């Protein structure tokens, strides 16, 4: 069976690429610290030596649109082209092409349907910055095949938070039951408190630092039940109007498991939003002998 080599949850900040590659007067003052944190985060994936990446993200009205909107969708294709004109325009993101892992995608679709997740699928999916940002931060060589999993955190009505957690738990079981000798990392990106297009956007910090503090604690300690007890579709409006992206973090908490303490936790307080990075090693930290 396949091995779950690492579980990684991260914010996806579309400005990282430009900030990290800019020089001279264009380079923002926080870029060096940001790059240093990302390089440490990247090392947590590298040392897991993955062969395949399951990438959980959310299309931002790029290919998926309101005339035909899936709640959860798996991409099954040999290749995924990536990034769109308006992401080049606003964020300076590069065009990319990633290979797909169709056998694992087919397994997730079949097994997911049989576990009562009525997953939509796409055989021609152009992926956006919710997936390419973590490729850029965690695996910039973009050399590993992926299985994209898209969630709807964007176009209400949305699935309940508990469904995100349940899908995360199912993804873990499905990866671990995939008949393969591959090492799989599951990487998912979302947001902490975030406001887009509303009065609280682009402030000195994220719109709700107290929510961010509690969210980081829930994730880092694996407090899935505590998080589920406090977070609802209604409550997520309060920290910021785009905070429903936090449900992708909840999905990743489901992958990591109840009570699973993250092996790597880091944050960076930026204008507009807080960055947060988490890595779990379900089978022990690579290279370290498990305690007797």
């Amino acid at each position, binding site marked *: 069976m396949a091995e779950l080599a690492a579980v990684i949850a991260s914010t996806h900040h579309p400005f990282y690429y430009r900030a990290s590659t800019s020089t001279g007067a264009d380079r923002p003052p926080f870029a060096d610290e940001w790059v240093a944190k990302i390089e440490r985060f990247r090392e947590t994936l590298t040392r897991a030596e993955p062969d395949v990446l399951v990438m959980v993200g959310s299309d*931002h*009205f*790029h290919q998926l*649109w*309101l*005339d*035909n909107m899936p709640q959860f969708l798996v991409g099954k294709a040999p290749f995924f082209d990536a990034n*769109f*004109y*308006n992401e080049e*325009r*606003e964020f300076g993101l590069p065009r990319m092409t990633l290979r797909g892992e169709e056998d694992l995608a087919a397994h997730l679709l079949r097994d997911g349907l049989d576990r009562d997740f009525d997953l939509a699928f796409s055989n021609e999916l152009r992926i956006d910055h919710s997936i390419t940002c973590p490729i850029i931060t965690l695996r910039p060589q973009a050399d590993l095949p992926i299985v994209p999993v898209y969630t709807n955190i*964007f*176009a*209400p*009505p949305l699935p309940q938070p508990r469904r995100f957690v349940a899908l995360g738990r199912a993804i873990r079981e499905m990866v671990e039951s995939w008949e393969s000798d591959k090492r799989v990392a599951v990487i998912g990106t979302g947001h902490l408190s975030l*406001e*887009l*297009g*509303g*009065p*609280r*956007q*682009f*402030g000195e910090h994220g719109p709700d630092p107290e929510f961010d503090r509690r969210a980081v604690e829930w994730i880092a300690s694996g407090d899935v039940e505590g998080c589920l007890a406090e977070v609802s579709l209604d409550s997520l*409006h*309060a920290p910021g*109007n*785009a905070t429903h992206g936090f449900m992708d973090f909840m999905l990743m908490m489901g992958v990591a498991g109840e009570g699973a303490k993250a092996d790597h936790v880091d944050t960076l307080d930026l*204008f507009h939003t807080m960055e947060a990075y988490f890595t779990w090693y379900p089978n022990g930290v690579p290279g370290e002998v498990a305690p007797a």
Partner: protein
Amino acid sequence: MSRYLLDKFLYTVDRDPELVERYREDPAGTVAWWEAEMANRILNCTADERSTWLEFTEDERRALREHDHVTLFQMGAHPFLTLTLFIAVFERDHGPLEYQKAYGKAMEHISLPYPDIST
């Protein structure tokens, strides 16, 4: 109220570089052309297979014609779509983050709960 159609306008203009420029230079003409030619186009169907029933209210036309992002927000247009398109249209006239901050400042009188954006 047709939040879906407002969103469809923002979405189809934002993804097309030529339409972004048209909307910047001639918002009234672009809105009129779009409603006549594009509003009933089903994006994943051939041009002949159109819808027959989609149209803006006069208030919606006016908000789009006047580049009025505050009214669009209050109408429940998807805030991400409005923000992304308006950054494309107006950011170039401002210093770094100046436009984004002013965009939020213009809405500072709006408090929770925000308008419903479901479609």
